[in-house]
Structure formats: structure tokens, C-alpha cells
């Protein structure tokens, strides 16, 4: 059986969701057997390819390159998963929306607190223009599944991927559906991460 074509995309966010993806630890070795990661910040492809089965999208849509990217991602992917709170709600990346757009934020960083003023990097084909409103992914394209959390935990991402890779619907537990949450049952935050769970799959 051909390996599933999996992609991960990083828009405007902190990479915490991708780090949590890596927190699946040794399951990554199993994943390499059943899925081919065809596009990701972790691999070397430069162009988002056609015919992707599943894509995890981290981050909010913050600049014109993100906008172009997410449209291409949607057109070329069967299942698009909104991956973490920035993708799901805009989260921290969208706090700047209440400041009145991109310019005040840029001015503070590059003009008001620098001297001489006028040093905002110039939007071009190299440096993308910021959008005035940071948008969650589903405000731009259709999203198939949402994985909330800041970030969603490694075990939660693994649960979701195992289902989607076998063609089952992702049916999240109640404790997964919390913004900023740990994606774990209540009261289990301080349980030691179980090394046995990863060993059983190695």
C-alpha cells in the first residue's frame, strides 16, 4: 500500500504546534513507515505539492504570503486540519487586531522606538506585506477538523493522526476541546509522561 502523503504548514505562530508534533517522539519513526511527509518546515521541499492526503496547518493568516499559501494548501489537500489555537482562533497572533491593524505594530517596532524613523522593512517579493487583520484559517478556507490547544499535546496529535491515517473520523474527547488547554484529562497534568506508551510502538 502506498504511504499516505502528509504535510505540515507553519503560518503565523510560534512553532509550538510543530514542536508538539515532534513530541510524538518515537511514534515519528513509525509514522515515517506509514506516511510520507511531502511538505513541512522539517523537510526540504520548497513548493507545496499536489495530491496531499492530510495537512496540519499551524498558525494564523498574518501576511500576504500566508494568504497565498493557505489557498494553495486548500486546493491541493484532501483533509485540512486547523492545528492549534492560532490556526483555530487567531489566538496570540491575533492580539494585534485590537491595535488597529498592522501599521501601529510595525511603527512601534521599527519607527517609534528607533531613531531615525522610517525604517519599516519594505514589502516586496522578499519581505511580505502584513495583513491588517490576522485571521484564523477557517476565515479564509474550508477547514475539515480542528485540533485546539496552545499547543495541542503530542498524544492528542498522535490520536488524531492515527484516526485520520486509517480513514476514521477524528472524534475528540471532551477534555481535548479546550483552548490553551493541555489536551489531557483533567487532573492528569502532572502525571509523568509514560515512556511505556512510546516503547510499545517501537
Amino acid at each position, binding site marked *: 500500500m502506498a504511504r499516505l502523503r502528509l504535510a505540515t504548514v507553519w503560518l*503565523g*505562530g*510560534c*512553532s*509550538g*504546534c510543530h*514542536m*508538539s508534533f*515532534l*513530541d510524538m*517522539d*518515537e511514534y*515519528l*519513526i513509525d509514522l*515515517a513507515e506509514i506516511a*510520507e*511527509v511531502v511538505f*513541512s*518546515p*522539517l523537510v*526540504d*521541499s*520548497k513548493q507545496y505539492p499536489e495530491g496531499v492526503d492530510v495537512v496540519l496547518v499551524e498558525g494564523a493568516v498574518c*501576511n500576504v504570503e500566508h494568504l497565498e499559501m493557505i489557498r494553495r494548501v486548500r486546493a491541493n489537500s484532501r483533509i485540512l486540519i486547523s492545528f492549534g489555537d492560532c490556526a483555530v482562533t487567531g489566538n*496570540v*497572533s491575533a*492580539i*494585534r487586531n*485590537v*491595535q488597529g491593524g*498592522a501599521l*501601529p*505594530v*510595525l511603527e*512601534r*517596532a*521599527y519607527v517609534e*522606538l*528607533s*531613531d*531615525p524613523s*522610517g*525604517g519599516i*522593512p*519594505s514589502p516586496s*517579493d*522578499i*519581505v*511580505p506585506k502584513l495583513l491588517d487583520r490576522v485571521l484564523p484559517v477557517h476565515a479564509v478556507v474550508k477547514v475539515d477538523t480542528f485540533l485546539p490547544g*496552545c*499547543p495541542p*499535546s503530542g498524544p492528542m496529535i498522535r490520536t488524531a493522526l492515527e484516526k485520520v491515517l486509517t480513514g476514521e473520523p477524528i472524534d475528540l474527547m471532551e477534555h481535548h476541546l479546550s483552548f490553551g488547554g*493541555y489536551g489531557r484529562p483533567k487532573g492528569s*497534568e*502532572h502525571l*509523568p*509522561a509514560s*515512556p511505556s506508551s*512510546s516503547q510499545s510502538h*517501537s
Partner: protein
Amino acid sequence: MGQRIVIDPVTRIEGHAKITLHLNDDHTVADARFHVTEFRGFERFCEGRPLWEMPGLTARICGICPVSHLMASAKAGDAILSVRIPPAAEKLRRLMNLGQIVQSHALSFFHLSGPDLLLGFDSDPAARNVFGLAQADRETARGGIRLRQFGQEIIEFLGGKKIHPDWCVPGGVREALSDSAREHIKQRISEAIETVRSALDLIKGLLERYPEEVTSFGHFPTLYLGLVAQDGSWEHYDGQLRIINADGTVLAETSDAGDSLELLGESVQPDSYLKSPYYRPLGLTDGMYRVGPLARLNLCERMGSPLADAELIEYRQRGGRIVSSSFFYHYARLVEILACIEQIDALLDDPDLNATHLRAQAGINAQEGVGVSEAPRGTLFHHYTVDEHGLIRSVNLIIATGQNNLAMNAAMLQIARHWIKGPQIPEGVLNRLEAGIRAFDPCLSCSTHAIGQMPILLQLIAPDGSVLDEVQRA
């Protein structure tokens, strides 16, 4: 006008970036530039927030090194409360920071750079990644994954989650380490040491296998900046800020975090969201400095634990007392991982960790505070001013990766000039430019939230790299 080549995006780094190459008509390299294309604007939207919220909020700057922001932010908060935190709290913070350095360095070596180093810079790009490494060399990949997990588990045991634990607070920490967690970490020490020692054997072989990369991936004299302990040994959490030149002469040293900010200037280029700090007394051209593992190993006199001390001696036999090849960042990272594991092991036996007093209680006693800590990639500064109620008035962050920006650009030019020989540029050569960036392990999530209240130099640079105009703040 010659040819322009854009590498977009730069892959297997932690952030959004491009590289441009400008070639002359005769296909020689006119210029090579590293551009950061992301900007989020934290410094503005932190204003008005309570001081108490800052560690948890600024941790969201970066999912790769959230703990670094927890440390620097909480330390700025300690300064504003004007307290000395309980000894147990300091040791627990140190423990978490050590876990963070281990996980981040393991990520850099095994997950991001490992595919170049172990599969080859010219290997098939479709498989040149951690998943390809897992299929080509399962045990090395597994070792790296488990080493990163070891660091992440320390963070989780202390803070409740691996990424963005809201655990450090102004005045101390929220919770101690449980006995069962201590036991679990203890049991994993020997495996972690074995893994890093195997990796050290690997990197020593790679120095021989890649002599051209060693001499072209950013091999030049610069200044170096970072923390050292009072006794001159390697330090990651607190201590003296030291700046040395390429000969190892100390140019400045201070234990006052506020003073250290005066030493740094910051230039702005129109083609990147990332600014470029420099050592202000020497100006932009001569003030280029490097931070991070390479700098810290150049700055310190010893690592302070037996296995790492022995490795440092061998490291210096191979690279010199002051190591100037950026390729050695990989090697330095592994020596640091070893030092971290030894220090974690020692801390776990420290009876102070059993203390229950973990937080100094105080109100707002100063309206300005600077927190400095060593992040995996280098020295991180958080500088806040607050009103009398502790609401943030201004935020100034100086991030490790920005401080390497000038050196990363210089490395790009060196690599391009060394490897580009004609009109045809093989994929493996373009990958070497990216690999040169990966050696620095830039963290661009972090770096594009920095702002400067420092002296600024604005430069207008022509396509041939010449400076057309510059303006400097008096």
C-alpha cells in the same frame, strides 16, 4: 545587471526566511543575503498587561524555546519586585533551563542538521530530513528523539506541560519537582549520556569528512558575547555578561544587566524583519559578534563538570582556544548537552530541591527591570518598565538569533563565494547555504519580536552589497 537566485523558503530551520544570491554577469557572487520574513508584534501588545502575566505571555513568542522567555521574563520580574528568590526556586529554574537546552540542542543536531551531516549535503532532498534519517539510520534517529524527549520531560515534570508551561513567576516558581519525577529523570541520565557521547564521536568524524564546510561555513573572527559564572566557568542562567574579541581579550564584563544593554547597538535593513545588533563601542563593521554555544565555549574557562571538561579540552585541541568556524556550533552544542546532563544529575541530588518555600512575595518595588538568561541560541534580554500597579509600560526584547544576524549574513557570503563556480548551481550548493544557516540554529519565532530602544544605525545597501547611505542615532 546579473542574476538573482532566491532560496524560498529556507527549510529545516525554526522560522520563516529566504536567502537571496546576487551574481555578477560573469557568475561571480556579488552578494548573498539572509532575510527574515515574519513579524508578529509582541512588543506592542504586551503594553498594558500585568507584570505577572508576562512570563506566560512572552513564552508564546516561541514554541521552540518558551522556557528561555520564562526565565528572562521572570528575572525581569524579580528585579521589579526587588527580591532575591528562594534558593530552591533558583535551582528549579536552573533545572528547567538545562532541560530546555538539552531538548533544543538535540532538535538542532538530530532533527534539523542531522540529515545534512549524516546523509550528506548532496543527498536526495526528498529524503534529507528526520523521517529519512529514521529510515536510513533508525538507531541514531531514535537516540536523538529520545534525547530531546529527556529534556522535554524535565520541562513537563516541573511545569505541567512540555510547551508553554506557565510555571516561572516573578519571585520564584509555582511548583516543585515530585519524587517520582526525580526518580524517572535519574533513570534516564545514563542513556542520555551515552547518546550524546555517540554524537560527539560522530561530529569528530564529520570534522574530517567535511573540511571544506568547516572552513567555509562562517569561518572568520568576530567578537563573542555571553554569560560566565563568577569563577569563569560555563554559565546558563545567571552570572557576568562578558564580551571578548577574536583573540580572547575581555572587552567588557558586567554583572549589572541594565549596564549590558548600553553596550549594544542595533542596525536595520530594509530587506528583513530581523534587526542586527552589534557591539556599540566598535561600531557596526567591527562590532559584529556571535552568541550561543560557540560563543559560550569561547568565553568560559571550563565547563564545570568532569565529562564536559574533558570534551572541552578536546574541542579546543581541534578548533583552537577561540574557535572561529561556525561549523563548530554543532560540536559546541553537543559539549553543552553533556554539561547540561551532568548538571541535571547533580541538581537532582541537591537537598534544597525538597524545600517548600518556592516564591518570594512582594509588590511593585521598582518600575524598571532587566532579565538576562542564556537561551539555547544565546543571550536573551527582557527589559520592562511598569507603572506603580505593575502594568507594563514598555517592553524591549533582545533575542539571541538577532545577535547572530550579521554573522549569518557574513557566513552566507563566504559560503556563496567559496562554492559557486559558474552559471550552474547544483542543489547541493544551495543546500550548503541553508546548512550554513542551520549551523547557527536560528530561532526566527523569537527573533522577529525584538525591538530596540538602543542606538540604531540604518543602512541602505545596494544590490552589489555596497553601503549607499547610513544614518546613525546620536
